[in-house]
């Protein structure tokens, strides 16, 4: 739309949208992210919303936020602090001020009446008490302007008010020099049956854009398209990437995909996503509880599907006994656990890494299974695919850990052509290859054969009782039980020979090795990168494979004077390392607030050890 000759060129900038949970802030943030991604920026997003669907309107508890970081350069995190805050009411301002740099705040001035100011817990109007002096505050009449614009639209007042988030989005689009066309296309698709809503939303969006242009109080930012690897890209969040990775594995092994699932935040979107793709033969079974979610999965695996269940911490607890059954039967299943704040119901919509010990040990008996973790929203695709590959090639349950931050956060994903994905060798056997064919093991992996019902003359039983090493029949013989426990442990241990080695970022030798795992990757990478630029001798080693650990882990650790293990829990991975690689001394950095790390805090903590 021109007129941007004064635009301030920036490499990175982040914006946080906040409002009441009914104000549509998640949608606003998502549309802004999509427009930025389609424009060609690198992006990273962080939705931060309450667990109540509609907490009391206007209160701090009901504030919903969505932060997006956009960049010309590679963006690893959603940004510690936002450069720009959009606050739709006083509560949103109060709840989010601590997350804003001394930058720009756009408020809906119409919502700053006495009632809402008091509801938010302010004693005085923050717009008039000089408390925001160090910020540039834009008093935008968002509600009244929206009403004005749509006065003659024929929409009822509720629908009119609901469109006010598009005014805020319009303001943001001018401020960040974003094209409107992607969002307009979204309206056309979304409301194709209600053309009056297409027009209304377009009008409000443009009005916001024009308002920002006309007040002459704002300097727009310009963030040029990012310099990233060539290819076709798509904006994707962790849950969608997980679902797609599972489908890719199923297509690769030419088996139907089965998902046994019970709804639980923040994992349900995997169920929602997969339930769409019946045309690709995906079967989603919404079970009566978490236990049935995994038990149907076990049944489906025995019957010859690529079988997966998804859940979050409390659900993983309920699935424990059945995971043990899958371990005992030695059948391939994947359990995707999207971690959230615990224990118990905990912080359902917040992120955390405190299910690691549960994933590793939360079962009766000696019951090892493969535990791995994705580390960015888009690589949830790769690790979901890898989890399926390991499960069927090694005939074992695999627990894939993601978390609320990865699940809901999004970033550009370089679209993968499925033809380029690695081959998956299932252990399906269709003919007799010796006595007790289903129980014959591969010499390298110790995985048994997978014989699917319907196969002639290979009828066999599997179960929860200890089985004889040779015949697979139930056995109570003491020495056989010992042998089987050792075999199952060794089978999982050998997976290490088939997974990539631990990679490092930074120098091969140094003073401090930062160790992380799972969803904290972006923050740790940013912190280490920034310190490397400052000349510090620091390196990052980030784990995706936890049980078993990559075979070179000890070799990497041995090259550093100090090791600091950083996690969003009270020290689960560090204690696992103390147990499995006890020859090293580990420092630790832990935070457990339901939120991602803050890069600045990490840097400060690392500098103490340099």
């Amino acid at each position: 739309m021109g007129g941007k000759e004064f635009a301030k060129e920036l490499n990175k900038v982040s914006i946080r949208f906040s409002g009441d949970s009914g104000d549509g802030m998640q949608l606003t943030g998502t549309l802004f992210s999509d427009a930025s991604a389609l424009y060609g920026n690198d992006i990273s997003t962080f939705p931060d919303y309450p667990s109540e669907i509609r907490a009391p309107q206007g209160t701090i508890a009901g504030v919903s936020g969505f932060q997006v970081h956009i960049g010309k350069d590679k963006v690893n995190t959603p940004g510690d602090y936002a450069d720009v805050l959009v606050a739709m009411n006083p509560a949103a301002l109060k709840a989010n001020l601590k997350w804003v740099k001394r930058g720009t705040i756009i408020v809906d001035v119409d919502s700053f009446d006495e009632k809402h100011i008091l509801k938010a817990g302010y004693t005085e109007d923050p717009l008039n008490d000089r408390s925001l002096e160090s910020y540039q505050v834009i008093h935008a009449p968002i509600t009244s302007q929206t009403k004005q614009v749509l006065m003659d639209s024929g929409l009822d007042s509720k629908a009119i008010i609901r469109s006010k988030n598009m005014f805020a989005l319009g303001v943001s689009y001018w401020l960040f020099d974003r094209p409107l066309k992607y969002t307009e296309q979204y309206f056309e698709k979304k409301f194709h049956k209600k053309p009056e809503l297409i027009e209304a939303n377009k009008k409000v969006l443009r009005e916001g854009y024009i308002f920002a242009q006309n007040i002459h109080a704002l300097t727009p930012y310009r963030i040029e398209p990012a310099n990233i690897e060539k290819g076709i890209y798509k904006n994707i969040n962790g849950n969608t990437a997980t679902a797609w990775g599972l489908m890719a594995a199923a297509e690769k092994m030419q088996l139907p995909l089965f998902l046994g699932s019970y709804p639980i935040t923040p994992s349900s979107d995997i169920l929602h996503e997969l339930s769409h793709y019946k045309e690709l033969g995906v079967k989603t079974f919404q079970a009566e509880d978490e236990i049935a979610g995994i038990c149907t999965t076990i049944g489906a695996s025995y019957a010859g599907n690529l079988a997966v269940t998804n859940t979050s911490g409390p659900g993983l607890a309920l699935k424990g006994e059945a995971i043990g059954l899958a371990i005992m039967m030695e059948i391939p299943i994947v359990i995707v656990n999207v971690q959230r704040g615990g224990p118990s119901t905990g912080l359902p919509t917040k992120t955390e890494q405190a299910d690691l010990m549960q994933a590793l040990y939360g079962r009766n008996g000696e019951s090892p299974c493969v535990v791995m973790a994705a580390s960015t929203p888009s690589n949830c695709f790769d690790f979901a695919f890898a989890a399926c590959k390991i499960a069927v090639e090694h005939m074992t349950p695999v627990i894939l850990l993601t978390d609320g931050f990865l699940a809901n956060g999004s970033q550009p994903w370089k679209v993968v052509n499925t033809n380029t994905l690695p081959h998956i060798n299932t252990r399906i056997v269709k003919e007799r290859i010796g006595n007790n064919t289903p129980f014959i093991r591969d010499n390298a992996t110790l995985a048994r054969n997978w014989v699917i019902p319907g196969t002639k003359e290979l009828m066999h039983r599997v179960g929860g009782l200890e089985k004889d090493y040779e015949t697979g029949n139930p056995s109570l013989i003491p020495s056989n039980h010992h042998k089987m426990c050792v075999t199952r442990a060794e089978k999982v241990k050998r997976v290490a020979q088939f997974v990539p080695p631990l990679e490092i970022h930074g120098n091969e030798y140094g003073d401090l090795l930062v160790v992380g795992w799972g969803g904290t990757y972006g923050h740790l990478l940013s912190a280490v990168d920034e310190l490397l630029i400052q000349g510090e001798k620091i390196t990052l080693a980030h784990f995706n494979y936890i049980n078993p650990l990559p075979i070179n882990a000890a070799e990497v650790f041995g090259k550093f004077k100090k090791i600091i293990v950083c996690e969003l829990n009270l020290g689960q991975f560090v204690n696992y390392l103390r147990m499995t690689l006890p020859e090293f001394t580990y420092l630790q950095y832990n935070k457990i607030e339901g939120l991602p790390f803050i890069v600045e805090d990490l840097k400060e903590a690392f500098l103490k050890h340099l």
Partner: protein
Amino acid sequence: MTATYTAKDLKSSSEVKWCAGCGDHAILNALQKAMPEIGVNHEDLVVVSGIGSSRLPYYMETYGMHTIHGRASAIASGVKTANPKLHVWQITGDGDCLAIGGNHFIHTVRRNIDLNIILFNNQIYGLTKGQYSPTTKKGQITKSSPHGTIENPFNPGELTIGAQGTFFARTTDNNIPQMTEVMKEAALFKGTSVVEILQNCIIFNNATHEYVTNRDTRNDRQIFLEHGKPMLFGEKNDKGLVLKGLSLKVVNLGKNGITEADILVHDATTPDTTLHTMLANMKSPYLPVAMGVIRKVKADTYESLLEKQIETAKKESEIKTLNDLFYGGDTWEVK
């Protein structure tokens, strides 16, 4: 289709480890007789059990899963949904199915997945050695109820019908021909069929069903229901059931001018649950206990509806492969 296998082919190499005199032996026997007669390939049979009544899958030369307590309904549901061409049997007991597995059971029945659920009802926990179960008679003294139970028992038939069950039958472990016939009918039915077998636990609850199942008196204490036939029973087949007001009542043919025309005719196929529930609930000593197929109502199965949705989606969707999905929608190219 004639089967190419016999009952003998269904005996596995595992040694049967049930107590001598346990009703399970007869049930296993009946199952092995019924299966070859339902026209299913040997390799398509899958037997799934939980824990308790039964390690039965290990004794069947079929595909089988001996799983965890209470979860057989869910696991069997997964097998059938994933691979609908398989013919799936679930072996379960009153504790496994109605206590720890109660939730899975009612939801499986509600979904009408094509499973054959064989419910061994011995009214006791046998494997854990004698605690009362959800079907133990109220007041009964057991190991965990030394003063008598204070819980009302479930009637599996009433529960099945209450959960929108489409098929319910009852039989007894001392009547192999009847058991075999009922199992066959359950197997041929498309939908969740629940077959309750009144089973004796010789060690922990001996003779619990004796009043009903005793061979000398059973003809007067049981009624074998057959679709389309009058509800007659008794040693001389001279007793029948009539509806009086809202209750069932036993009448004698020839007395007070009662003829066969006055006797209720069994309609197993009506969707209406009223009479089926009353029949399933009949208790001794005032009414005979109902045997045979009490309810058998045609309805869509879960897996057939799912397959239909998949077929439609495949026909109508533009997404034929994952690449269509991945490269479709909102993308941008970095050159």
